């Protein structure tokens, strides 16, 4: 046992600030304090540092996205919250209980207030939809009558009251995940963990499931932790986001702040997926490095947050009197902020380009010259 571990075991929660400032954030549902997770070498495979120096808090009642590429440590992180994994160092505090210090019966009791849904639904094929939802209640020792009433209520909540007696093999992917959600909510948990819950679903079904999660958060006040590798999921649902890369938290905060001013390359690459920072093939293939007579300079403008990116083309044309060509544009809304990029063709030679760039910097737009088109 190393020094960190002996510090983490059996101490009152009041001393947490000694480990981490994030851990003492008021009104946090989940707090990670000085977490690292190492998987030891096994059967010739080298050990893996899955998580290192993790310190952050998940606000009570929030929808928090944890985004990262595969292997970033997302799955380990979420399994620390419900005690399926133990941290190598540090503590995980869920609803003011140190879940990382619990074992056996105490841990199992605490797990009943944390629901989890899975990418592949993980329903029992031998049980009907209703009986799958009943499983956590049977495990918690509810009476038959209570279980029956609660299951009926839950099936209605997730919108599949008519699928009561259907087996999973008779349900669609979306319906299976609804059963999964109902099952996760059965014991009235305070936290719902979603491990890539929409990754196996088509876009339309994904949307419906995310809408359902949003309404569950709104109406039941359940804190939702969304593990995902898909930016679109975070954009549609989360208010808070944590970006994980190679076992480290590289950025965290409000979705609007993080994605209007992304600092880390990983965050920027996730953002590029939704705002399309790469040009479509047709204009991109025509760009050359030298100007030609009567051609246009190609300028890309980043739209990030406030600053009315949606009217920039009209204003630029009007105020500078330029015949601006729109080559490509994508503006999206993330956390209520405009985020995207515009690619413009500016006529009139070097002088016009300089005037345009000066004008853009006046209004705090970041812009770059990509080249020229004929």
């Amino acid at each position: 046992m190393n020094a960190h571990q002996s510090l983490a075991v059996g101490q009152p929660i009041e001393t947490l600030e000694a480990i981490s400032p994030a851990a003492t954030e008021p009104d946090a549902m989940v707090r990670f304090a000085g977490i690292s997770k190492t998987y030891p070498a096994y059967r010739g495979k080298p050990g893996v540092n899955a998580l290192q120096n993790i310190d952050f808090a998940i606000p009570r009642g929030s929808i928090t996205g944890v985004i990262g590429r595969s292997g970033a440590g997302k799955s380990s992180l979420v399994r620390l919250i419900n005690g399926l994994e133990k941290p190598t160092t540090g503590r995980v505090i869920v609803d003011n209980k140190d879940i990382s210090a619990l074992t056996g019966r105490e841990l199992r009791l605490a797990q009943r207030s944390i629901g989890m849904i899975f990418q592949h639904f993980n329903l029992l094929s031998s049980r009907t939809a209703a009986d799958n939802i009943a499983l956590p209640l049977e495990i918690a020792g509810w009476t038959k009558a209570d279980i029956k009433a609660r299951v009926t209520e839950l099936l209605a909540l997730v919108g599949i009251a008519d699928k009561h007696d259907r087996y999973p093999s008779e349900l669609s992917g979306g319906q299976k995940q609804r059963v999964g959600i109902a099952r996760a909510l059965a014991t009235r948990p305070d936290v719902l963990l979603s491990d890539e819950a929409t990754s196996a679903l088509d876009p339309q079904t994904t949307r419906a499931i995310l809408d359902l999660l949003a309404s569950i958060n709104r109406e039941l006040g359940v804190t939702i932790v969304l593990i995902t590798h898909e930016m679109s999921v975070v954009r549609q649902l989360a208010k808070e986001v944590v970006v994980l890369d190679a076992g480290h938290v590289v950025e965290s905060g409000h979705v609007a702040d993080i994605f209007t001013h992304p600092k880390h390359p990983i965050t920027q690459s996730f953002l590029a997926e939704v705002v399309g920072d790469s040009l479509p093939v047709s204009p991109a293939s025509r760009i050359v490095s030298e100007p030609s007579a009567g051609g246009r300079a190609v300028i890309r403008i980043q739209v990030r947050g406030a600053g009315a990116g949606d009217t920039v083309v009209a204003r630029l044309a009007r105020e500078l009197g330029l015949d601006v060509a729109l080559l490509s544009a994508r503006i999206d809304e993330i956390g209520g902020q405009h985020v995207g990029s515009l690619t413009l063709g500016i006529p009139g030679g070097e002088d016009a380009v300089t005037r345009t760039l000066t004008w853009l910097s006046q209004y705090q737009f970041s812009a770059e010259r990509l080249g020229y088109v004929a």
Partner: protein
Amino acid sequence: MSPELINLIIQATGESLYMVGIAALLGTAFGLPLGVFLATSRKGELFAAPIVNRVLGIVVNATRSTPFIILVVAIIPFTRLIAGTSIGSTAAIVPLTIASAPFIARLVEAAIREVDGGLIETASSFGASPLQIVLKVLIPEALPGLLLALTLAVVSLLGYSAMVGAVGGGGLGDLGIRYGYQRFMPEMMLAVVVVLIALVQLVQSAGDYLARRVNRRLRHR
């Protein structure tokens, strides 16, 4: 065929069914928990006990690699201790059980290992105890495989039961050897074979039917 011979066949069928039925029940009673344990006690698993797992694995393999006719003779003192005698159908149940339990355990182990590991994680995530996971997740989910395993075990036991004539266990195999072979009665040999084939078909069909009925992985109306 004379009525006496037909009576002999009926009596022998009864003995075979008695030996195989009881041995299958006892073999399952020992083999099912053993198989579940073998499937869940490796490193990092539900009832992790890697050393016990390895020792039990060796014992199971040793039993399974002993030819049945040798086993029957080798454990005569043990059989006498349990059954009070080493001769007759009841005594024959002892070696039959000892041979079938490890066989059933291996089949159960394979069926349990077929259950998606994600389901164990899921049940753990809502606070199920290891015993609850076995009873509410592993066994129900593996049921189609378990029924097929049991069917296979019963069919094998019918084959084994032909050998217990060596210790006066009776049954169809014994009848076939004594009358069909040693007394040169080919019609008796034929009758024994036909009854055995019919029994195996019956057991296999019943097992297949039950396994299909409980298999909810298949879409059915």
